[in-house]
């Protein structure tokens, strides 16, 4: 088994079955060179101070009003915002593109924290369908359960649900990590292309159906495998990574990761190269 301290970076990643993940670093080097930072302007972002804290009661606000007020508070430099009484409203906290400590004291409806890039979010309740869809970076922690399409199409960041999630978790995900403390529904990892999903509980039917790449780790029972989803060897590197990830995620720290199942793409259904268009352009 590979030793994380002695092997090269490339073989370390390959031994964990995550060889495609290395491309992420190359992409960042190519397009986010600090020397060229002045050439990039990220619209709608703010420099915030995490020590500057405020509360916002959204009970009598619509979702657009609440999101506009969050944006207004960030523009004033507030780096820690506590949202009171979200009461299952849809689309709260969407489109935050900078660092921010955001805490929801309650539950969110559909599309909560969608299209975000960078915030650290804690939701002390439940979330509806499509939570954190298209997340680019950051961390979103849900204390209770989540609906279907959890983490759909995420490209980066950590998405953690301490309870159970619905169907199609991580559908079309292209990076990042999704961690589920409870059970997951049918079609988990459907058409995922990169990234990792960790499920400590049971998972429903058609796990990893038509997945292109990426890795799924399951601690409980699997309802059934989807097309082209196959078992892979759980290496010691995988176990090290799982332990670290679960510890950082404050979830399942004492979970016996050695008994987890590892599922990857059989790569019989598709024929594509693993470069995204922008990466391909850079390589040429």
């Amino acid at each position, binding site marked *: 088994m590979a030793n994380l301290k002695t092997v090269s970076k490339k073989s370390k990643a390959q031994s964990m079955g995550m060889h495609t993940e290395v491309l992420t670093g190359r992409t960042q080097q190519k397009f986010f060179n600090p020397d060229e930072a002045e050439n990039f302007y990220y619209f709608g972002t703010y420099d915030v101070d995490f020590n500057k804290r405020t509360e916002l009661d959204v009970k009598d606000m619509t979702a657009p009003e609440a999101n506009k007020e969050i944006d207004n508070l960030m523009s004033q430099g507030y780096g820690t915002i506590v949202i009171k009484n979200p009461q*299952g409203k*849809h689309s709260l906290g969407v489109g935050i593109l900078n660092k921010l400590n955001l805490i929801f004291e309650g539950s969110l409806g559909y599309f909560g924290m969608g299209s975000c890039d960078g915030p650290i979010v804690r939701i002390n309740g439940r979330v509806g369908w499509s939570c954190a869809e298209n997340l680019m970076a950051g961390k979103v922690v849900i204390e209770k359960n989540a609906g*279907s399409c959890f983490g759909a199409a995420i490209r980066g960041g950590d998405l953690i649900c301490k309870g159970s999630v619905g*169907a199609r978790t991580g559908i079309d995900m292209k990076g990042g990590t999704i961690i589920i403390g409870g059970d997951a*529904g049918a079609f988990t990892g459907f058409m995922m292309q990169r990234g990792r999903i960790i499920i400590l509980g049971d998972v429903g039917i058609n796990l990893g159906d038509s997945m292109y790449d990426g890795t799924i780790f399951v601690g409980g029972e699997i309802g059934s495998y989807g097309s082209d989803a196959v078992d892979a060897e759980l290496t010691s590197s995988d176990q090290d990574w799982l332990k670290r990830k679960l510890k950082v995620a404050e979830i399942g720290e004492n979970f016996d990761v050695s008994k987890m199942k590892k599922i990857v793409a059989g790569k019989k259904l598709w024929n594509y190269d693993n470069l995204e268009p922008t990466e391909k352009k850079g390589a040429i």
Partner: protein
Amino acid sequence: MCGIAGLIHRGKSSNVGSELQGMLQALKHRGEDSTGYALYGDTDGKNFIMRFKVGENVGEGSSSIMEDVSVYDERKKVVDQTLAEMGAKVIKEERTLPYSLRYEIDYDVKDLLEFSQRIESIPGVEILSMGKSLEVIKDLGNAKMVCDRYSLDKVVGTHAIGHARMATESGVDIKSAHPFWGYPFSDVSVVHNGQLTNYWNNRRVLENKGMRFMSECDSELIAVYLAEKMRDGATLEEGMKASLTGLDGVFTYFVATKDSLGMAKDTMAAKPLVLYESDDLVAMGSEEIAIRSVLPQEIDTYDPFDGEVKVWQI
């Protein structure tokens, strides 16, 4: 898209009319072509309550053909005459709207099938519900509009299911609106969110077995499918479990009887459902905001998994 909601109080009654109105109004963005309520009110259980219509709402957005009120009056007369011929005594009569009526009937009905067939053989007449507790009220518009029109906010009972409809598979009219009565079974109603793709195949089979369809709405199939299973001796839960394979398509549906409420979700889990369950209350809806309208405090909710069937008793 459509939205569905339901709740059941266990061990007590509550203002279910007002509660369901709040839940369905919270879901109005999922469709407000029509809204329907199936309310299980507190009654003495002696008489049947028959909700029926003698015409359609031809208001704005309706796909129905306009008729004169005198046509409705004529149909009502024929219904009254037919009831008298069958020995049914109308104890109380309410005509909320020209086309919508509520009768309390004293009648020793042994076979609701024969009774219903006689009434519905009158052209333009449809029984919306028949039962000793159930009342189905459905009309065009959103939940508040229908609730106000029929004064449902004061209805007290144990459980209720409802539907906010965006018409996709059939017309904007009352006959295609949910809930559907589980004809010919007393006190059975169904609401559905989704699309059934083997509607016509199932319909042909069920019609050959003597079951009746009043609309071309695919959701009606669920009520008829379950009724046929129960007619053949299955329990409600057995019928619901059979529907997971017998019905093709995507669906989440609720079914209610005199003393129970159930939910079923298809094996692809393509349609949403959020559920709250405690010792004295079960509330569920297409979205959490529906539940929040009756339970604004922080609560634990969850999404039932694919292929799940659950039934609760009052």
